[in-house]
């Protein structure tokens, strides 16, 4: 097959998938930019802008009339603290499992990873009671406490994969030069694993942004919501729908996350498969 024909085959396969997978985002954008008169008219062709569109009124409504900005801030805060806790717990564990503990380490590593498979939907009922007993209900601390239970297993696994790709000889050289094991860790291994650590930061953060079950169970007051819980519960009320604003609210977190995913995808694959598939 000639190169041009091979390319054509690729487009014919990938193109339809890309259209189906990306269409909802095109549609969110079209909706977010249309005014209510345009949106709720059955006569208008929805694929083009009609009377009064495009407009930024939905975005203005979202930030002026709703608590959306508060939810974004809550999500960012929870995300930042959870990522910090995750790194403190997962970095040393992943390093030790990758280097120091041999075959026994592999088993513990797999065991930690398996806990990632225990879903929130099995744990939210008892945890909801525990959160209530600790007086953390309706407070972001409840999420900060519980979220590392899935980010730590996930991150430990990824970091284990990254650490295995750093040749042990480098640390041995530092050890020979008189550095302690922890000194070698801080001065040789961590600087080399910055890309891996960044990948873990981004994917743990996005796990936090994604989380829904705990967020709707532990938090019920409007101003303590995260984005994932706030948009579907607070902006959809009975029969009153703010579809334009809803679609704007959906797009805003999606776009930066998609760009970050795209940049870090190859590293993610390397870490995710590096732990087991070597």
């Amino acid at each position: 097959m000639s190169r041009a024909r091979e390319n054509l085959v690729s487009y014919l396969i990938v193109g339809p998938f890309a259209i189906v997978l990306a269409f909802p985002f095109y549609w969110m954008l079209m909706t977010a930019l249309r005014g209510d008169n345009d949106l709720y008219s059955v006569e208008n062709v929805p694929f083009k802008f009609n009377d009064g569109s495009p407009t930024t009124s939905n975005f203005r409504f979202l930030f002026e009339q709703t608590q959306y900005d508060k939810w974004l801030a809550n999500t960012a805060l929870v995300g930042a603290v959870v990522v910090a806790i995750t790194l403190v717990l997962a970095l040393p564990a992943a390093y030790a499992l990758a280097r120091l503990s041999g075959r026994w380490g592999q088993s513990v590593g797999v065991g930690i990873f398996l806990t990632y498979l225990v879903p929130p939907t099995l744990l939210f009922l008892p945890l909801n009671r525990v959160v209530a007993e600790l007086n953390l209900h309706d407070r972001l601390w409840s999420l900060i406490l519980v979220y590392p239970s899935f980010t730590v297993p996930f991150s430990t696994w990824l970091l284990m994969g990254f650490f295995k790709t750093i040749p042990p000889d480098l640390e041995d050289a530092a050890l020979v030069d008189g550095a302690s094991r922890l000194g070698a860790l801080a001065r040789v291994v961590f600087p080399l694993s910055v890309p891996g650590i960044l990948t873990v930061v981004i994917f743990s953060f996005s796990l936090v942004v994604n989380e829904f079950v705990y967020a709707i169970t532990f938090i019920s007051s409007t101003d303590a919501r995260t984005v994932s819980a706030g948009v579907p519960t607070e902006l959809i009320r009975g029969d009153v729908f703010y579809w334009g604003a809803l679609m704007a609210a959906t797009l805003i977190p999606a776009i930066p996350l998609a760009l970050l995913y795209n940049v870090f995808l190859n590293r993610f694959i390397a870490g995710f498969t590096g732990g087991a598939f070597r």
Partner: protein
Amino acid sequence: MAVVASGRRWQDVFEERRFLGPLLIAPAVLFIAVLVGAPLILAIYLSFTDATAGSLTGEFVGFRNYLDAWDSENFRRALRNTVIFTLVSQAIVLVGAGVLAHALVRDFRGKWILRLLILLPWATPVALSTVGFLWIFHPLYSVVNWTLTHDIVPGGPAFFPYRAVDWIFARDFWPGAIQISPIEPIDPPQWLGEPNLAMAAIIFAHAWRILPFATVIFIAGLASMPPEIDDAARVDGATGLKKFWYVTMPLQLPIALVALLFGIVFTATDMTVVYVLTHGGPFNSTHMLTTWAFDTGINGSALGEGAAISLYLLPPLALVAILMLRFARRVEVT
């Protein structure tokens, strides 16, 4: 020099194996034990008691919660829905991701932009993209229905897509679950208002968001295949489908199975898509075990029974975990 270095190293490793290693691992393991292990045990304990929302303890009632749950019509429907939801969406994802990964592993012009578009559903928080599907399947303003019932080739020959859909699917040839009654342009399908269509919408929305992740895993598997295998296959005259069947697929099977098992876990235990899209409706027809447990345990305050319902998921999960360990080991060996 080498002898001295390795001597030192062994001494260090000996010390560290005993102390430093466990010391570094302990905080993470303890944290996970407290926040995953303990709640899991608590859930199992609660499922054997009559605890209600206000307390963490209750009278021991044996298997009554499990039996009560089983006797409820809604529970059995939720169980059946969970199985259908998991199997159908994973079948779609497996085939889709396999095809897509094969096409994406090659280089071609404009690949990066297509890859970005394909990654979008994975990067978007699920609860939010599902809100997008609420709008796409809206009873009055659904873009799907608009497209189905309008002439989409203006100026040319009148073409109404719903006629094509009718021509394919409104036939006795199809089994009941697939066959549709002809679409009325005045009364288009209520995607979220009719049990079968609502299940289809849930399955579609979920497959849509898992597909990119499965594709990524498949690409990783394909990329790790040594190029010599390609050459060897070419020398032996294996091309196209033949090569896929005899060379690529057997080599990709373990990683595909791992991706599939992951998909099964994240689908069977997912609550977000159903909760946002239909909340189990219409008339409790699309509940999954997860949403039914949520409604029973949180909204209905029957903590014990809610825990029992969600714990019906545990045995299949354990089975999947064991299978996954098996296959992960096989991947390691190859």
